């Protein structure tokens, strides 16, 4: 599918595969002798978003912005504190583990660190067959066939199936993780920093592979990363997170060409550019990300925002729609 065809498809259809409604994930902070809860880290704080079938929704944010927690809560790898998660219009946020099982095969995840996410005691074949063993009734022979075809799909030699994870490089391990995620023909895959541990030449190989697989199997991706260039390359729409909330969400072109939120502007300007003839003007933000256990009042970004005014300390801005598909949470854009 060409880029234009894909954009058209996404614009005309409102077929949501995943929807999050007012999703919250608070982690309690225990203190004192009695280990009472003395506060909360609001890792995900009232997030609503919809993911359209077949698209790649990129989520960018700095460390501590809550982007990984968001992914884990959507998959129910972590329990949401509040809010709903709809998968193909069914509310999965309160289902028991047993009730969740049929949904599990449709939703998969690829993690950042392929060194930690693959069991070192299992060989490639066992790693890929494991989900088939749990979720399907394929026999031994069929499972082996499937494992071999998956290895070929992700660009690994089928004769490497008896090797163990330590015998592979980082890029190859990430291919194994992808093969494993694909084993059950999922519809939706969360990719949590899948290429950030890889060198650029290997990163390009893995990104191309992911794009090819998306076309072939009509996959929907939620692509979580801190690298704005990588997210721009792979995504159709992009959400920018700051301290557990969405600061801005828009189709990729809008977000990168006309960023509205001062945080998005600063983030984009800070990306080192290889364009030696046209240097971008940098907006250097002061200070660090505030602690998510004690976020600033009002707008969480106001302590670092070059455009902050009085109102930002008093009221928290809500996400407002400024143009087709472009939402921003900033008082500057309120009527």
């Amino acid at each position, binding site marked *: 599918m*060409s*880029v234009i065809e894909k954009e058209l498809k996404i614009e005309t259809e409102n077929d949501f595969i995943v929807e999050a409604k007012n999703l919250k994930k608070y982690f309690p902070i225990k203190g004192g002798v009695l280990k009472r809860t003395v506060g909360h880290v609001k890792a995900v704080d009232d997030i609503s978003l919809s993911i359209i079938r077949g698209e790649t929704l990129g989520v960018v944010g*700095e*460390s501590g912005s809550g982007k990984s927690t968001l992914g884990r809560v959507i998959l129910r790898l972590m329990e949401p504190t509040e809010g709903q998660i709809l998968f193909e219009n069914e509310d999965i946020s309160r289902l028991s583990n047993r009730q969740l099982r049929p949904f599990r095969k449709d939703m998969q995840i690829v993690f950042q660190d392929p060194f930690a996410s693959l069991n070192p005691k299992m060989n490639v074949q066992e790693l890929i067959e494991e989900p088939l063993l749990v979720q399907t009734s394929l026999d031994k022979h069929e499972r082996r066939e499937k494992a071999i075809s998956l290895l070929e799909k992700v660009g690994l030699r089928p004769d490497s199936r008896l090797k163990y994870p330590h015998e592979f*490089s980082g*890029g190859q391990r990430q291919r194994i993780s992808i093969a494993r995620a694909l084993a059950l023909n999922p519809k939706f895959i969360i990719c949590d920093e899948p290429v950030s541990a890889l*060198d*650029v*030449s*290997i*990163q*390009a*190989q893995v*990104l*191309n592979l992911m*794009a090819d697989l998306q076309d072939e199997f009509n996959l929907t991706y939620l692509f979580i990363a*801190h*690298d*704005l*260039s*990588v997210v*721009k*390359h*792979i995504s159709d729409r992009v959400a920018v997170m700051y301290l557990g909330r969405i600061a801005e969400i828009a189709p990729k072109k809008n977000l*990168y060409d006309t960023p509205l939120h001062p945080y998005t502007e*600063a*983030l*984009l*300007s*800070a*990306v*080192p*550019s*290889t*364009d*030696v*003839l046209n*240097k971008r003007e*940098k907006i*250097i*933000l002061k200070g*660090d*990300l505030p602690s998510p256990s004690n976020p600033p009042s009002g707008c969480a970004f106001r302590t670092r925002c070059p455009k902050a005014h009085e109102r930002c300390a008093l009221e928290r801005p809500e996400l407002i729609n400024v143009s087709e598909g472009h939402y921003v949470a900033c008082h500057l854009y309120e009527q």
Partner: protein
Amino acid sequence: MTEKTLLDVKGLKTYFYLEGKKVAKAVDGVHFSVKPGETVALVGESGSGKSITSLSIMKLIGKPGKIEEGQILFNGKDLVKFSDKQMTQVRGREIGMIFQEPMTALNPVFTIGNQITETLIRHKKVSKAEAEKKAIDLLKLVGFPRAEETMKEYPHQLSGGMRQRAMIAIAISCDPKLLIADEPTTALDVTIQAQILDIMDEMKKKFNMAVLLITHDLGVVAEYAERVMVMYGGQIVEQTTVENLFLNPKHPYTNGLLESLPSLEKEVDRLGAIKGMVPAAHEFPAGCRFSDRCPHVMDKCKAANPELVTVEPGHNVRCYLYE
């Protein structure tokens, strides 16, 4: 040479002797020079030998590694011939160094103040009170508004960006002529990376310090360096000005790297990936080390490794396409 060079590395070879008589030629014949006040970048992927080159300059190579051959002329004196004791007078005083992970580079049981004053008292032979005064000034310089309080804090109380700024304060405390920065911003978020690189650039200008910047990030190279060396398989494959490298890249590896880089400026359907992966330092292919991944590979590439040749003044490439 008319212009004075500060650092002149000639034919540096650093080998590691592995089990089973295998030899990893991590750095294999590297030549380059750094002039006072300039920023030179050493760029490459993991396993290219860029960090080993910087550690060799500081003579921080431990067993089973060894500097086999070559000269490291710093202000005309060959550091390779220096004893451990002589090196302690160079490290931290004439050459400052900052590393990727400031949490492991800082000592967790001493306060920030303690770690800066230690360097000053040792190298500058100043009194404790003078050292403290200078340390506070340095911390203010690298952007700690409450420097007096930061002096009393421990590394774990600081964020990643603050730790890296504290590292910079320590590294520049004795007015080094050369700062070696090994992936100084790789562990940091992009807004913090911009802060740190900005401070490094400011310090460099203020003290006319030369910087040897080791990084895998071509964007950082484009923004902050003046000259650049691309390393692959323990050798320099291309060496030129930053402008030249991005506007007129010659080596197929450099081209491949640039095409595999997603960027904010261009839009492509698929990235131009380099096939295969970086070979390990004990199993380089015969001939050109990039030959098994190169799209332009010829018969002679597999027979012998090409030399670094000058294609135009100040632009050297190690590739048969340009001989």
